[in-house]
């Protein structure tokens, strides 16, 4: 079971060669052009469809100062973090457990794979029905969406561990637990990290989308509530903050990526 998404988790940008100032200028130019197009859209299409950039900025600032935006962001992040923790814990623990029970693994593997095909977002109304309208259904959503990529990656990573390293560790007298810790964990770290790059941003966007459907706090709630009130400025503001949040997480992970994978001689991002 490999996770094809990991192949595309973080597309790499080619480094800027010295002297290519045209590229930087082009990028700045494009950014300015996009902003200009936004302003133009706001002026022509009207405030109902395209909120004015200036007003959106104002709204973000005022909401931050009043604390409501901060509250929404905090709620969303808290939700993401909790869901992530649960999903990640199960996603990591389960493969290690299954490692010791090959017969059980073979028996349940097709069902786990089949369950990947179920769109998790579609389960939210069911979760709402079962678990109420508080955080619970959203936690389930985030947990599931984090669980799957992590589980698949760790599972594949364990399978890919070099058997010789394990044998060598056994010969040296290591206990099963020590083997798990040292050899297996380090070998599957690249797989795990690749899945992390998917799961972490997903945790946040899942929280937001969950908040579209249920709840009365959080970025998603803010966006959807604004929409229902035809408050386009609010919608734009919320989407902007949400996008900035997820992009920030992506950027952080990229930084970590370089440091964490320095020791690897071979790039194991599973490419075609």
């Amino acid at each position, binding site marked *: *079971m*490999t996770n*094809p*998404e990991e192949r*595309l988790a973080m*597309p790499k*940008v*080619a480094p*800027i060669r010295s002297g*290519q100032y045209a590229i930087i200028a*082009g*990028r700045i130019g*494009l950014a300015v052009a*996009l902003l200009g197009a936004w302003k133009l859209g706001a002026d022509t299409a009207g405030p109902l*469809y395209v909120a004015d950039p200036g007003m959106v900025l104002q709204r973000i600032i005022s909401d931050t100062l009043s604390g409501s935006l901060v509250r929404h962001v905090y709620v969303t992040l808290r939700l993401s973090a909790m869901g992530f923790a649960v999903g990640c814990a199960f996603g990591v623990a389960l493969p290690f457990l299954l*490692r010791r029970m*090959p*017969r059980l693994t*073979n*028996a*349940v*593997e*097709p*069902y786990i*794979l089949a369950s990947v*095909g*179920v*769109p*998790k977002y*579609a*389960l*939210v*109304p*069911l979760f709402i*029905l*079962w678990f109420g309208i508080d955080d619970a259904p959203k936690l389930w959503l985030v947990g599931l969406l984090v669980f799957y990529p992590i589980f698949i990656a760790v599972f594949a990573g364990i*399978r890919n561990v070099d058997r010789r390293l*394990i044998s060598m560790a056994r010969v040296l007298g290591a206990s099963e637990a020590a083997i798990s810790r040292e050899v297996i964990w380090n070998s599957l770290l690249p797989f795990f990290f690749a899945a992390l790059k998917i799961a972490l*941003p997903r945790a*946040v*966007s899942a929280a*937001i*989308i969950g908040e*579209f*459907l249920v709840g009365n706090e959080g970025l*998603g709630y803010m*966006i*959807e509530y*604004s*929409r229902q009130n*035809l408050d*386009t400025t609010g*919608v734009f503001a919320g*989407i902007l903050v*949400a*996008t900035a949040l*997820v*992009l920030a997480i*992506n950027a952080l992970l990229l930084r970590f990526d370089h440091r964490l994978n320095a020791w690897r001689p071979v790039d194991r991002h599973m490419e*075609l």
Partner: protein
Amino acid sequence: MATPLHSSSPSVARQAPVAAWRRARSDQVLVMVLLLAIWQGLSLAFGTYWIGSPWGVTTRLVSGVANGDIPRHASYTLLEATAGFLIGALPAVALPFALRRLPILTAILDPFMMGGYGAPKLALAPLFILWFGIGIESKIALVAITVFFIVYFSAQAGVRALDARLVQMAQVMGANERDVARHIILPGAVAYIFTGFRIAMPYSIGGAVIAELISANRGLGYLIQLGAMNFDTTAVFVALTATTGIVFLGNWTLDVLERRLLRWRPRTNLDIEAGS
């Protein structure tokens, strides 16, 4: 798709593969029966209000298909997903080809494309509903933008992966730019593009369903929401099953397409294990 986990125990390794396979298969059937039993048990214990029973769901599904309800809503969702997929994927494939000879332009665009890829597109659902209403257009738009960024990067990887020696060889034989693009780059990129399609496909269905959950009056997402609001878990399960069915249908379609388009690829161990 059962790939036996290699055990370090020598006795299992020495077992004849056929016997092990049969054992795995019977185990799986056992698990299936167990899962169904648990499902039925839960349904009995908590009542069909909370969990529709397997039998109830099956009968409702069959009747829903028979009277055309399920197919109607399913086709609505499928239409959103497919139209959005095509609208998003076609430019996403064309763009890297068009930009192939313009590396500066590609470099300028890269951070914007990466930003678009990383940004949560599904969070745009309310905006699109605001713009296009609760009809089909908002769903198509959402799916299109989600699919676009995914396929763009695979297509770009495919275009970049071209083997320079093949291009040189073709040029020595008299191929011009168009020939090279058509006969060398495109076929080479198809495999990468297909990976992008595979990744994007579940997102296209998921995107359609999410938009329907938020606001719609047709489609499988709508059915799910409707069932939940009526506290009719059986209806919810039926709609969920249909949704999963569509995902499998999409996978199957891609499998068939891939087998036809990528006949020339040598089968790797992974392919053989996966039973393709």
